[in-house]
């Protein structure tokens, strides 16, 4: 296949001033690299946030009674929780689904009392899904055969001054509005290191919860997906499979503050990337314009020979594209080691966050990992090409104003 001469001309032009070409390519490359690195961090932290939300007991999706979204009443129960659980577990793309029931409870030991939201769970499924449940510091997590047993957070234990195997007095409001009492033995203590989480953790079995409150069944099904990005695709299908009156909510609906934070992070990083690209574009536009100024006579000659405006535009943009491709490659070469390092070793934020990594009841990972993937290639080429094409606009405008009559004399073009 014959390569058009216009393309050869454009590519070879880069070799005329190797130093300028090199600096321009490095400029575009650095801009690409910064944008890629910031995007990698944003994507990585976003994915970690979603994972943290999901693994803190919220899931990616939650099946709730229809009225729950409006009332947030923990006494509400799903119309058919076993059917909903089965539907969720058989849905393609769902990694796991666990039932929950919640109630507000008072725990007492001696003269000390603390209030919290107690969670009824299926122990084995919960342990597999909930990362906080796996942070056992003493004892063990619940088993499905447990009766009159609870796992509490370390801060709860400190407040009540209790230890493993102590018996707590539990007070809840029953189905008829009467106070219900029970004794629960502490079989395990969870410690996340985050006071808010450890001060609100109390798990019992789902059956225990039903016995205590008189409300049978589950009040919610927490659903984990294989791919959190498929959330909007899976939710409608799942909604059609569950009983009428029940609903499916996303984690963004459940935690609007977290969702808002994620969006703010993305907007901020996009804005920073935009600023970087603008600075690069301005720098490259200057270099491109200088290159055109140096070639005024040459362009005047080509226009005198009959080169049309669109061909002049094509030539300069081809040069920009060639430079953009090299800049993108340079950007990938610069960014890849940085992204790889942060994707594998991560950035430890403990010194910045003072050791508290929970927001809105979500236990965040103190080590932030960037996201490394094929998207980096497409982003590098997108930024490289778009910035070079934008940088070429003014030089093109300038080139089109060159007077072709200057080709016929030694006067300056």
């Amino acid at each position: 296949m014959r390569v058009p001469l216009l393309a050869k001309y454009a590519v070879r032009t880069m070799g005329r001033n190797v130093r300028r070409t090199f600096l321009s390519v490095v400029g575009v490359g650095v801009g690409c690299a910064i944008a890629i690195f910031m995007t990698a961090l944003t994507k990585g932290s976003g994915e970690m946030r979603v994972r943290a939300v999901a693994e803190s007991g919220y899931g990616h999706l939650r099946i709730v009674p229809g009225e729950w979204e409006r009332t947030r009443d923990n006494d509400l129960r799903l119309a058919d929780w076993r059917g909903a659980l089965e539907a969720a577990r058989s849905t393609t793309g769902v990694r796991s689904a666990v039932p929950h029931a919640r109630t507000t409870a008072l725990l007492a030991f001696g003269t000390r009392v603390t209030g919290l939201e107690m969670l009824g769970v299926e122990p084995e499924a919960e342990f597999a899904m909930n990362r906080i449940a796996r942070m056992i510091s003493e004892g063990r997590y619940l088993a499905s055969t447990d009766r009159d047993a609870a796992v509490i957070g370390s801060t709860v234990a400190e407040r009540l001054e209790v230890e493993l195997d102590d018996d707590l007095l539990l007070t809840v409001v029953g189905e008829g509005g009467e106070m219900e009492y029970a004794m629960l033995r502490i079989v395990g203590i969870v410690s996340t290191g985050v006071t808010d989480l450890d001060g609100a953790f109390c798990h019992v079995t789902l059956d225990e919860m039903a016995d205590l409150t008189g409300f049978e069944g589950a009040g919610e099904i927490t659903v984990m997906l294989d791919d959190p990005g498929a959330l909007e695709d899976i939710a409608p299908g799942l909604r059609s499979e569950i009983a009428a009156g029940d609903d499916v909510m996303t984690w963004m609906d459940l935690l609007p503050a977290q969702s808002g934070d994620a969006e703010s992070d993305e907007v901020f990083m996009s804005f920073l990337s935009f600023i970087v690209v603008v600075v690069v574009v301005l720098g490259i536009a200057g270099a491109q314009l200088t290159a055109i100024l140096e070639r005024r006579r040459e362009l005047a000659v080509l226009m005198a020979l009959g080169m049309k405006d669109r061909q002049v535009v094509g030539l300069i943009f081809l040069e920009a594209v060639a430079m953009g491709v090299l800049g993108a490659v340079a950007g990938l070469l610069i960014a890849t080691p940085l992204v790889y390092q942060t994707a594998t070793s991560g950035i430890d934020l403990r010194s910045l966050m003072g050791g508290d990594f929970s927001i809105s009841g979500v236990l965040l990972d103190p080590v932030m990992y960037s996201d490394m993937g094929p998207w980096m290639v497409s982003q590098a080429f997108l930024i490289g090409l778009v910035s070079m094409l934008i940088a070429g606009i003014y030089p093109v405008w300038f080139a089109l104003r060159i007077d072709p009559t200057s080709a016929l004399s030694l006067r300056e073009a």
Partner: protein
Amino acid sequence: MNDVLVEARDVRKDFHVGKITVNALRGLDLEVRKGDFLAIVGPSGSGKTTLLNLIGALDVATGGVVSVFGQDLSTLGRRRRAHLRLNSLGFVFQAYNLVPVLTALENVEFVLELQGAGSELRGTAMAVLDELSLGDLSDRRPSEMSGGQQQRVAVARAVAAKPRLVLADEPTANLDSENAEALLKMMRELRDEHDMTFVFSTHDPLVVSYASRVVTLRDGKVVSDEQKNSDPGAHRSAN
């Protein structure tokens, strides 16, 4: 059959330099006929290059009419003038002005590609170079050629698309007499064999000696128009 390729009537061209108006051409009349090997001579500032710019559709007259191949150039927009230059006119410049990053062959091909020629353009370009005995230079870039070689390649580029009219601005100004003569012989052969018409602006007596017709400008007007009877350059060819 109308043999007049270029007709200039009462042509005026003014340039504005700051607040000063320079009258480069002041009511110039000229006809260029098919087969002319025409030298435009005159002192610096007499309007030679300005006239070439107007005939070459590179510029527009301030007044009067310039018609090329029967088309009044003042009625043509920028795009149609570019089309006219590309398809019907050839240019040879004083400073050669080959594209430095392209080889001799590619420089010739380039004009053909701009015209939209397809896969045959390489063969056409090579045939032109061979016809002008420049085939050996086909792979060389301008920086690898002498001034005379570059100017001959520039002529090849100008005539590759078989234009009816070739305009040359001081084509021998940067050449020694040997190269200049070789160039002029080459252009004369092109005129004879391909029915091309050549118009030169020049100070070079050698070009004048080869010209079939000499037009002298002074102060933006034609002051003499001499048609030679003898075969241009014959006295030199005989040497």
